[in-house]
């Protein structure tokens, strides 16, 4: 059985280069933002930018956009699970 060309989506080299460019811009942005003192917003901004970079990597580099729906659901639930672990912990820690 072959991995047929008709069944798969081949991402163009140029598209990958654009994703890379986006990731580079966000890297510069996150370093630049860290140099400005915004108080607690600094951490929020850093995590927001990192999450957006992660989204770019998962969607395009990891090809998730072109996978079956089940893959997307699986990734969604595993990320939500981790978010619940970390989120619920903070319903406890600040109130000790």
């Amino acid at each position, binding site marked *: 059985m072959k991995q047929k060309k008709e069944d798969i989506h*081949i991402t163009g080299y140029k598209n*990958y280069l654009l994703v890379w460019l986006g990731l580079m811009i966000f890297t510069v942005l996150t370093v630049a933002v*860290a140099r400005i003192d915004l108080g607690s917003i600094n951490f929020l901004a850093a995590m927001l*930018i990192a999450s957006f970079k992660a989204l770019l990597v998962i969607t395009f580099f*990891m090809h998730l956009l072109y996978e079956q729906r089940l*893959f997307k659901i699986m990734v969604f639930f595993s990320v939500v699970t*981790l978010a619940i672990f*970390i989120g619920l912990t903070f319903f406890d820690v600040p109130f000790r």
Partner: protein
Amino acid sequence: MNNTSTIESHKDYIGAKMGMWLFLFTELLLFGGLFLIYAVYRYSYHGGFQAGSGELSTIAGTVNTVILITSSLTMAVSISAIQRGNRKLCLAMLLATILFAAAFMVNKYFEWGAKIHHGIYPGSPELLSNDHGTVLFYGLYYVMTGLHGLHVLVGMVLLSIMFFLVYRGRIDSTDFVKLENSGLYWHFVDLIWIFLFPLFYLIT
């Protein structure tokens, strides 16, 4: 009658990929536990984390970020290349990915080396003379970047095997799921670093 043409080995490409994703979810929770510890201690010892982070080289961290993101690009391109039947480009891009990974490790070696040279390593008298938060920060720094570095090394071995398989024609434009799965692993390593970088190098 020609029976040989009808006999084909059955391969489940979707299943292979799903298995890889499931493995990556376990990896996510492995690192996730460490991220959770990091989050709680950073909340409790913000000052110490800030002091510890100030001692790390932002330039070294940024350079490694650029290296790893670029290696993800070459990895992705190598898969597109093999899908199009361009074996030469695939091999070149795979080699580039392995070299970027090596560059990352060399950078990491000098970074750790400089810190250890200054007496900053887990349990060192120099480190223990700092406040509790800074001790925790460096403990997590060594464990998390260390575990990540271990994944980079494993990735280098994996990609070297893939290079050999492509070179031998065992991976080609009709059967490339092994390369895709190796790519998924490599991008995951990149993903972890995308979060480690601001968490350790950019605390203000």
